[in-house]
């Protein structure tokens, strides 16, 4: 990553003319409220880090310190940059087939430092699988000592889509997972006739209650920490903006974000190229009047139920749903994962098959597990996933490799997402005329009104071929920013119209390190910023944004992007 390099070093500096955002009508207290919300959300560790710069002041002297001058996630030159994947299925999912050991070995082979095993929730999984997975994960930890292997769950969020739930290793982890699944998994609840089905709206209160329950487990010390990231959020239009906000606000510090990019990235490879010819990410669904939120209805100009440049529409659209959350000044982080079930062109099939060759779910339902996958020697063209670490990476910057510290880094938004090895990594440092050290992603800094904010991203360009066999070239980087306008009144708000691409940097360098700097001068109002970059191969008509992926013909290796998480800047 970006620590202390000097080779092939180039720098681009840009200076903005004036910060024109106008939120002068907003009472100053709104900012304070936002910061309090963030502090609560980031938990004790982040709060401690936040207060570290003020540590010289004794506790009793707090009133003499300007509480608005807070720096969360202060920039540091050295952290571990740990690649991982929080969405991996095994033979304990009724639509997957590989052993825990196989998935972990492949992920490790592909360079991952951490993984989360997230088999689908369900009655058989709750009843049989969790204990079996616990043993398999213990064995994998013993075999792969340098890899953090978390036990998690792909939660059927009642009334909504799926979500990853992550717990650190702890004696109570399996029992907490089982209890959570029994009480709050949409499929388990539907099987028990407590809700109509996993997607139906009558499940929505259970989702919020489930997150509060997880928060209670952390508060009570039953588990050290728990995290939730919503998966493939707009795939079917199930997760309404109000539901997502309800999760976020019900469990600050637990419900931390969503998959900015879904898995199944090979699903859009055309049949003629040996792929399933579906939608990239399996995003080929239609708006469904029965379950989809009205705001996701396709229009003549865009379809929220498709990926754009491999990323979920909610993340890819500038001024879209993600930005509407960030404009509130509250944390909501993105990740990128494999969602690996059955891998593109692999030769294995499930260990229990029907006469038609499909996975025999009856066998799964009886035991919560499929027999080990079988090698047929024949590449399968209907599989649309990649192995963990093969294409998608969630890179977490952590001060240690311990499980809980890694989770706290995720909780704090110290996360970068990349596809296809587009870049090796990036270091983001946002400093101000008041905070010279600055902060990094997921962080929050401050600037006196009229001051300057300097945004610097140091990118390690791809130094090696990716798994498609070529060294990707980064062609452009977008700096995106928008005003922080405080909590929304309408919980279904799904756009932030004043968020825009502030600056597009063209990158001509092909190796080494690139430093891109942009200065916001005379800053008048609080704002946030984030980065994304692309190989420039496939862009929308405006030449800036990602294009809607073509169902049935999307080669993921020809359309590579990275996205950073945001930094918030309070103008005080």
């Amino acid at each position, binding site marked *: 990553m970006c620590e202390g390099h000097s080779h092939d070093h180039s720098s681009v500096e840009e200076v903005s003319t004036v910060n024109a955002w106008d939120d002068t009508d907003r009472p100053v207290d709104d900012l304070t409220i936002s910061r309090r919300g963030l502090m609560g959300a980031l938990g004790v560790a982040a709060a401690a880090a936040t207060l570290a710069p003020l540590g010289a002041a004794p506790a009793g002297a707090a009133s003499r310190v300007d509480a608005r001058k807070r720096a969360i996630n202060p920039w540091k030159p050295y952290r571990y940059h740990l690649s991982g994947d929080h969405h991996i299925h095994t033979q304990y999912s009724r639509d997957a087939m590989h052993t825990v050991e196989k998935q972990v070995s492949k992920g490790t082979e592909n360079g991952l430092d951490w993984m989360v095993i997230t088999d689908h929730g369900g009655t058989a999984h709750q009843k049989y699988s969790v204990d079996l997975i616990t043993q398999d994960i213990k064995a994998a930890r013993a075999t792969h000592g340098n890899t953090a292997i978390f036990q998690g769950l792909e939660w059927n969020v009642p009334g909504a889509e799926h979500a990853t739930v992550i717990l650190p290793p702890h004696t109570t982890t399996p029992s907490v997972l089982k209890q959570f699944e029994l009480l709050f998994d949409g499929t388990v609840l539907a099987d028990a006739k407590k809700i109509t089905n996993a997607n139906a709206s009558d499940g929505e209160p259970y989702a919020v209650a489930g997150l509060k329950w997880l928060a209670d487990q952390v508060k009570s010390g039953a588990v050290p920490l728990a995290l939730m990231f919503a998966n493939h959020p707009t795939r079917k239009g199930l997760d309404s903006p109000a539901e997502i906000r309800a999760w976020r606000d019900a469990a600050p510090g637990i419900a931390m974000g969503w998959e900015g990019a879904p898995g199944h990235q090979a699903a859009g490879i055309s049949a003629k190229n040996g792929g399933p010819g579906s939608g990239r990410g399996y995003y080929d669904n239609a708006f469904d*009047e029965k379950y989809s939120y009205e705001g996701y209805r396709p229009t*003549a100009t*865009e379809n929220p139920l498709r990926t754009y440049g491999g990323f979920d529409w909610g993340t890819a659209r500038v001024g879209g749903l993600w930005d509407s959350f960030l404009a509130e000044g509250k944390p909501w982080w993105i990740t990128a994962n494999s969602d690996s079930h059955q891998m593109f062109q692999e030769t294995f099939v499930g260990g229990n098959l029907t006469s038609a060759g499909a996975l025999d779910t009856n066998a799964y339902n009886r035991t919560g597990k499929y027999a080990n996958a079988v090698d047929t020697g024949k590449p399968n063209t209907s599989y649309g996933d990649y192995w963990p670490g093969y294409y998608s990476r969630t890179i977490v910057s952590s001060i240690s490799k311990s499980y809980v510290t890694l989770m706290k880094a995720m909780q704090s938004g110290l996360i970068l997402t990349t596809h296809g090895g587009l870049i090796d990594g990036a270091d983001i440092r946002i400093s101000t005329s008041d905070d010279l050290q600055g902060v990094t992603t997921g962080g929050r800094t401050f600037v006196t009104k009229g001051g300057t904010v300097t945004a610097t991203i140091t990118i390690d360009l791809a130094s090696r071929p990716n798994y498609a066999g070529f060294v990707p070239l980064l062609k452009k980087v977008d700096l995106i920013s928008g005003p922080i306008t405080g909590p929304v009144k309408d919980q279904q708000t799904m756009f932030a119209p004043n968020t825009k691409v502030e600056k597009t940097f063209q990158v001509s360098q092909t190796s080494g390190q690139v430093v891109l700097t942009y200065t916001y001068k005379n800053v008048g109002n609080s704002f946030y910023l984030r980065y994304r970059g692309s190989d420039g191969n496939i862009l929308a008509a405006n030449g800036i944004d990602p294009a809607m992926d073509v169902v049935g013909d999307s080669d993921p290796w020809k359309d590579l992007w990275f996205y950073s998480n945001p930094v918030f800047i309070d103008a005080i």
Partner: protein
Amino acid sequence: MPLSTKRSDSWVAFDSGITSLSRRHLEETIVNHAAKIGLGLDWVITYQLTSGARRIAFTISSQDSLTLDQLLSDLNNHFPNFAGEFELDELVQQSSSKHSGRAVVFPIDVDITSSITAKELIKNSAIDAVIAIGEVLPVNAQIQVNGYLRPTFNNGKLELYVERVAGDLYAPIERESPHECCGGHDDEGPISL
């Protein structure tokens, strides 16, 4: 609770309530049963109800009011918990004015088993426009229909949204069989009334 319905001269609207059946299987249940009892359907349109829980409502237009009554009666017998009084008056009006909704059954007189041009489709069906999302549809673009069309009303016009799938080939954004996921969202399939 009986099936909640509203009627106008030529339309009947009903609320499917909160049911475990998917939209697709609800549609198949209704259309299959209409065929079984010999009911000719002119239009079947779906709507999203937003009062209370999200759910789907149907409006149906048929010249055969007696057999339509039988369909409703059969639905009522099988779905005694169909519930809801919301928005149905408005839906009857919207069906008459073609204001909004998604057409499952609509007038069409052309072979749609494979591909067709937008021009042919518009000429031979109630569809008023074919719109490519995010781009201008080339004049001679082929639409890969594969026997399945679900156009939507927009302010009086019946529009079919399509997306590019390869080269100049386009396909409706709603497919009959999108990828099915996953570990637990299945329903029981269409039912026989």
